[in-house]
């Protein structure tokens, strides 16, 4: 979609030369705060069905442009001037056998996070299908950041958020992971590891898959992802021409 209709041509246009066009593109990219033109990898044909993160971001874009026209403000959106979505790169499970506690771990590549931006909010979004194991019970879903991994003992974890819902609930579950941002801004080079636990009301650990939480194997429109809201902590310095 565009911001309003394109106006009709009312005067003769001059075609740009290749060099002029490159110079103009470079100037516009500088205004947009980009060092160069992004070159996203072409998606294979099988992967061209809409994915969860781009669909969510498109909704956010429409909310932001509606907000510019005086519409209702969205949570986190008003204060943010940059929103990034991250698709989880690696997913690990400890759900084999009856070994408890069960958990699901998600890893994200944070190398693209821009410098000089402050995180105002961060969310992990995971889709939950209705579950019948066990039927109609309360589930506690907790999220932790993996702070340090050890070869001989359990990883060090930092608690981020807890949500309580019913096993029959369906929809996107949003977990607040803003508290992890201080550490990841200091360690851009490190992957962010998030670990998710599910417990029943009587305190038993449960396989997140059995609870209906979908991972990387889900249809593309229901795969988990992370969204981070940034606000520029200072005005960007324009590069000298």
């Amino acid at each position, binding site marked *: 979609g565009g911001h309003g209709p394109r106006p009709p041509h009312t005067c003769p246009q001059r075609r740009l030369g290749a060099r002029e066009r490159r110079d103009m593109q470079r100037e516009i990219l500088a205004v*947009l705060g980009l060092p160069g033109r992004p070159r996203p990898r072409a998606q294979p044909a099988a992967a061209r069905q809409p994915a969860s993160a781009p669909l969510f971001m*498109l909704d956010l874009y429409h909310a932001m442009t509606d907000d510019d026209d005086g519409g209702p403000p969205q949570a986190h959106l008003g204060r943010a001037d940059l929103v990034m979505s991250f698709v989880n790169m690696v997913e690990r499970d400890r759900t084999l056998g009856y070994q408890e506690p069960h958990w699901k771990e998600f890893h994200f590549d944070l190398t*693209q996070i821009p410098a000089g931006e402050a995180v105002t909010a961060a969310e992990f979004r995971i889709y939950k299908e209705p579950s019948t194991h066990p039927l109609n019970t309360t589930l506690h879903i907790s999220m932790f950041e993996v702070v340090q991994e050890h070869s001989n003992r359990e990883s060090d974890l930092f608690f981020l958020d807890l949500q309580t819902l019913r096993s029959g609930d369906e929809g996107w579950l949003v977990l607040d992971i803003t508290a992890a941002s201080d550490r990841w801004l200091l360690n851009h080079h490190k992957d962010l590891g998030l670990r998710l636990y599910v417990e029943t009301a009587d305190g038993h650990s449960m396989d997140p898959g059995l609870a209906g939480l979908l991972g990387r194997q889900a249809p593309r429109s229901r795969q988990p992802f992370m969204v981070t809201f940034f606000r520029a902590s200072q005005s960007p310095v324009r590069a000298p021409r």
Partner: protein
Amino acid sequence: AARPLKRRQPKKTNELPHPNKLPGIFDDGHGSRGREVCRRHELYVSFRDLGWLDWVIAPQGYSAYYCEGECAFPLDSCMNATNHAILQSLVHLMKPDVVPKACCAPTKLSATSVLYYDSSNNVILRKHRNMVVKACGCH
């Protein structure tokens, strides 16, 4: 300008108007030489024409607008003139070769949002401030 005006027959020559003449008082909204007064004009920036639709998801382009037109005395209310611009316009009438007219420039700008893929195929939504002219005025 405080001297009493004398009624004189207009000369039948091709002389340019006296610099102290107050142009525009009886004009129909146009500047002294028929130019339009300072106002906002259409300017569309097309990401499609830039060949960027492989990484820009939305919008395909946006109306940025630009300001153009004459800031000639008298600067009426629609020209959003600053006090400084009014005084500069008056001094320009006295010394047109020394002091230029006030400039037609944006007085109010708004943001625009762009949704795009980065090189890692992450989707990014960025709000860029001061990208769209909302109003023009004489500065």
